[in-house]
């Protein structure tokens, strides 16, 4: 491996001596406009987030209490018509007692752990593919685009937000950031603490056939975001 690395880097170094590029070797200066906008209050951020997400076809729920939040989640679960769901651990869901309420309502949470060996790996994925709803928390939200940020971890699977046709995400209001840049400024140390950080901006979609917008290709076609006060 090493010789390939060295020879490729060496070729680049040699080319850089004659490169026809503007002088840009100096460090990039800080951006001239503010990254963080402390002037925006939580309410304004939540409103912007709600507006942007709704424009993309996301259903945003704004319950006033934890009981209402639980009820909103259960309503979506009941409406799905199915029984098996993929969910993150109770401690990731930002609403006390939600996990218990889901169990009490009779929904089965599939064990999300996918074995690493080929045959059981395939079997497990087939099982997870049956889930009708995925329930997750969120590391953050981006107000300017209506985006959810989800980070994987020991109790936070990737599949819960991509495999089922419906995705419910619980997002505490306090985790809404004005922009992705603001999010990175405050949370960049978390990138890499899990193998996967995904920004989700609206339901899965395509326009590959004559640019006709079609919702729900490989990912969820319905997203419910429950903003927790």
């Amino acid at each position, binding site marked *: *491996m090493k010789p*390939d*690395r060295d*020879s*490729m*880097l060496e*070729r*680049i170094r*040699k*080319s*850089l*001596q004659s*490169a*026809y*590029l*503007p002088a*840009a*070797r100096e*460090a*990039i200066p800080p*951006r001239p*406009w503010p990254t963080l906008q402390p002037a925006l209050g939580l309410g304004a951020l939540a409103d912007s987030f709600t507006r942007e997400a709704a424009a993309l076809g996301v259903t945003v729920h704004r319950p006033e209490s934890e009981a209402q939040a639980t009820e909103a989640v259960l309503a979506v679960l009941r409406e799905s018509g199915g029984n098996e769901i993929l969910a993150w651990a109770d401690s990731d869901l930002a609403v006390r007692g939600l996990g218990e309420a889901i169990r009490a309502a009779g929904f089965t949470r599939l064990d*999300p*752990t996918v074995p690493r060996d*080929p045959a059981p790996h*395939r079997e497990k994925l087939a099982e997870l*593919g049956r889930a009708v709803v995925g329930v997750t928390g969120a590391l953050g939200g981006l107000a300017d*685009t209506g*985006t959810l940020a989800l980070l*994987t971890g*020991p109790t*936070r*699977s*990737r599949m819960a937000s*991509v495999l089922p046709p419906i995705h419910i995400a619980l997002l505490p209001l306090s985790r809404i950031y004005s*922009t992705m840049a603001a999010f*990175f400024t405050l949370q960049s140390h978390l*990138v*890499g603490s*899990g*193998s*996967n*950080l*995904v*920004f*989700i*901006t609206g339901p*899965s*979609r*395509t*326009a*590959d*056939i*004559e*640019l*006709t917008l*079609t919702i729900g*290709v*490989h*990912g969820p076609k319905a997203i419910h975001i429950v903003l927790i006060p």
Partner: protein
Amino acid sequence: MSDTAFNKRVELALSDSSLHIALERVTSRFTTLRHNGFASLPHADEVRDRARLIRAHTLSRLDSYLAQFANSVEAAGGRVHWAADTAAANGVVVELAKERGAKTVVKGKSMVSEETHLNRALEAAGITVVESDLGEYIIQLAGETPSHIIAPAIHKTKEQVGQLLHEKLGIPLTDDPAQMTAAARAKLREVFLTADMGVSGVNFGVAQTGTICLVENEGNGRLTTSAPRIHVALMGIERLVPTLDDLSIMLQVLARSATGQKLSVYTNLITGPRRREEPDGPGDLHIVLVDNGRSRILGTRLAEILYCVRCGACLNACPVYQQIGGHAYGSVYPGPVGAVLTPALEGIDPWSELPQASSLCGACREVCPVRIDIPRMLLELRDESHRAGLTPLWLKVGLPIYRFVATRPALFKLASTLARWVTRPLASQGWLTRLPPPLSGWTDHRDFPALAARPFSDQLRDKHRKGAKTQSYTKTSS
């Protein structure tokens, strides 16, 4: 005009009426979407300037950022492979597949894999490859190549796609994109859940963290990089940014330029393989750094083309692409960016016509999110092509003749009188719609304005006699 393969492809494209309908719909729609996308961006011009600066800075220190990136990937548990050319890149993927007993590979969209013809290499090794981006899936079923960087199947009408899916998947004939999409989803879901290996491209690699960023709308990229046991990502060595903050700038312009979205639906940031305690995700992450001519380009006057973020905006804006579509270029990368990148990567000799397929109008430079000066490089390539003796005969002979005539006023006047006299019977309503060969090369697909009844020089002389003001010349010259 010469009868080259390129001209034949152009000929074919220009006479394909359903291609015309598709191109017209798509390029005009993309143009509107892009416009609206940037309207929603505060400081849009400053953001684009900064995006350009980030690309320029990164490339000017590419060796150190690439080394930093590779170290960060390895620190996060990923494996880095260095591939000098397409054979090396394909070799890495095929070897990995064999070594790990992978029989089925599911692919997310990757232009680099088109460049290396990875599918062919995998299939030759007896491995099944399935494209998972809907557009890529459609053209894979049709046995074609992408005609647009971000919408690979836009050359097809929905009726054509419906017919194709009917034949290949056995679904009822339909012209409803929603039904076709649902059929493809069902088919591909099976593939995602059973594939042994996922192969994806990379939009940006972050040197600071060893993160690879992949943007997409369908969720196929997310599944390709999450469901199979092994994830292999192919990445051009130039696709780096120094930090996450720089990444956020690039993402602000990428989706807006491509589809007008503020952000693509899925912006996947992958840092290393599945952690020991995580419930899912590939246990193996391999990143193949592909050079394939890029380090050479870096040392030339075409280095700026390496800024490109593959948004496809220059395709939609280009009056030539709008007429001929992507396939006529004959190269993996079509449109203005392809007309520079292809000869830059593969040499001018087989591709000397691509830099000519442009009116140098500058629309590409105008829409480019990182303001790449494509027209300048097209001229560089025309120059290179001329030096290499690749100028077509008619131009080689024609230009000196034209120069000889045009620099001798009396001769020029005689020639234009002659031309007016010869073409007058061919003109109708002020336009020449048919000329004899070799001039038919122009009029087969375009009209040429008929020569004015009185030459400009005559009109000018009359004005002078009447003592008219200079400002009015242009208004009366037609």
